[in-house]
């Protein structure tokens, strides 16, 4: 007993210190980026074309590019992911096939993003002939975040009490009607919040878009989904490594990083608020 008490306090303080350390690291990164980038952010920076390979001017096409990629990724990954989750939780029986599917999903989640990039290059860019385009990039990113969407959607569906399904079935509703009317409405908030986190990840990834969509320097807005675009993470990489006068470009780096971080944190915050809102709305 005394031995345990000797250990209790130091371990508690160690845990606490580690937790604070994490917060401090995150806080410092944010502080550094905000401090370095806030001076660069201006209406002009956000709404004009870049000049001289991005060393001067704004980042409008870069923001628009990432925006389109996010939209395209959501539009493809969300329906597919939700449908897969509905099938797995509501319809599929536990057998070898579903076990294999689940294994595939968790494997997919662990694949390095550059591999997705190469996969997208092989399948969408070359085989389907979509070229390097918003379409190819979105599809590649969609493949990457599918596991996140499927897993979070499954969790959301499982959280809906079984009694809702039983009561609905007992009233003569078909299975699909039960799912549509009395399961999905309660699961969709959870599905969306999980998906938004996935989208946040997609917005910040460089490797998958590197080979499938991202342009080095393209100071114009895309006309269709078959056009290339610039994107925030890749642009940041370019600014940090590919331009000659590093010090002169530094404010542009900070500014771009700040925009990207605000975008990703904004998505995460949206997910949190959405969850709080729906948790209040639907209580059981």
């Amino acid at each position: 007993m005394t031995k345990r008490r000797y250990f209790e306090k130091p371990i508690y303080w160690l845990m606490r210190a580690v937790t604070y350390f994490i917060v401090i690291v995150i806080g410092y990164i944010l502080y550094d980026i905000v401090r370095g980038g806030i001076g660069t952010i201006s209406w002009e920076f956000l709404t004009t074309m870049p000049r001289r390979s991005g060393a001067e001017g704004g980042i409008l096409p870069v923001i628009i590019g990432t925006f389109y990629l996010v939209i395209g990724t959501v539009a493809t990954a969300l329906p597919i992911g939700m449908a897969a989750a509905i099938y797995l939780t509501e319809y599929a029986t536990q057998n070898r096939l579903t076990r294999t599917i689940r294994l595939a999903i968790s494997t997919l989640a662990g694949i390095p993003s550059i591999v997705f990039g190469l996969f997208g290059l092989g399948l969408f860019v070359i085989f389907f002939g979509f070229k390097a385009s918003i379409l190819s990039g979105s599809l590649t990113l969609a493949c990457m975040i599918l596991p996140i969407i499927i897993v979070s959607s499954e969790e959301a569906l499982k959280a809906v009490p079984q009694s809702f399904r039983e009561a609905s079935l007992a009233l003569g509703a078909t299975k699909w009607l039960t799912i549509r009317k009395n399961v999905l409405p309660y699961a969709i908030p959870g599905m969306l919040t999980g998906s938004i986190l996935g989208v946040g990840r997609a917005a910040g990834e460089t490797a998958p878009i590197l080979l499938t969509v991202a342009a080095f320097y393209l100071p114009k807005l895309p006309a269709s989904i078959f056009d290339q675009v610039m994107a925030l993470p890749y642009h940041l990489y370019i600014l940090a490594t590919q331009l000659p006068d590093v010090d002169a470009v530094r404010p542009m780096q900070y500014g771009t990083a700040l925009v990207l971080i605000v975008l990703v944190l904004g998505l995460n915050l949206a997910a949190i608020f959405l969850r709080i809102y729906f948790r209040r709305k639907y209580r059981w």
Partner: protein
Amino acid sequence: MVVPESVRAIRHDERAESAVKIQTRSVDFFYGDVQALFNISLDVQPNSVMALIGPSGCGKSTFLRTLNRMNDIILGTRLTGSVLIDKTDIYGSAFSVVELRKRVGMVFQKSNPFPKSIFENVVYGPRIHGIRNPGQLEEIAERSLIRAALWDEVKDRLSMNAMELSGGQQQRLCIARALAVDPEILLMDEPASALDPRATARIEDLIGELRREYTIVIVTHNMQQAARVSDETAFFYEGRLIEVGITKQIFTNPVHKQTEDYITGRFG
């Protein structure tokens, strides 16, 4: 779907003529390899209350759920024998489960209202069966809530979330929801087991009212409740139907020793 009062009356007269409402013959039921029911043959008379009693795990709830095929949703279950409602085999290949569950309503042990308004809870069934007319839905909601003896308590706050009702009110709401699709048979799986004595008394009064219009099968752990509300009582033990008869007789003069032991509290 909605039957006018006059037509209902005629239907009830017909029902009184045709003898048996629910008839099961040699029903065996399996969860996977485990047999849960053995050779159950039981008749339920129309417009009566049949109580199913027996110790936990005796199969009474499983039997209840065979009557609206709710066991179908559990994987790996299997039934042999026949379950007839109005002389039609509800496990027959031509029989629609949706149609069956419209005719055979169910009230669960734990009240399970949907996290919607009181009104939306009641009209959930009619809506999924295609009734859209708001006036008609309101009329169904009012009639169902009146029948479930809940109308006076909630008529001014139909848009309130059903989760805010008390436990007893929630259970009566679930009864109203089941009544809204106009069933002929009502299955109740220990509907009052989670309620306090006052709420239980209200449910029991309600069952007394409902038996005039519906055929009711109720599972209960409460001997007094079975004695109070039912016309006939069936005693289940270890998946077998030990004894069935007029409630008064089962409780005063049971034929089997096991029944007597259970009723007098010597086991179970």
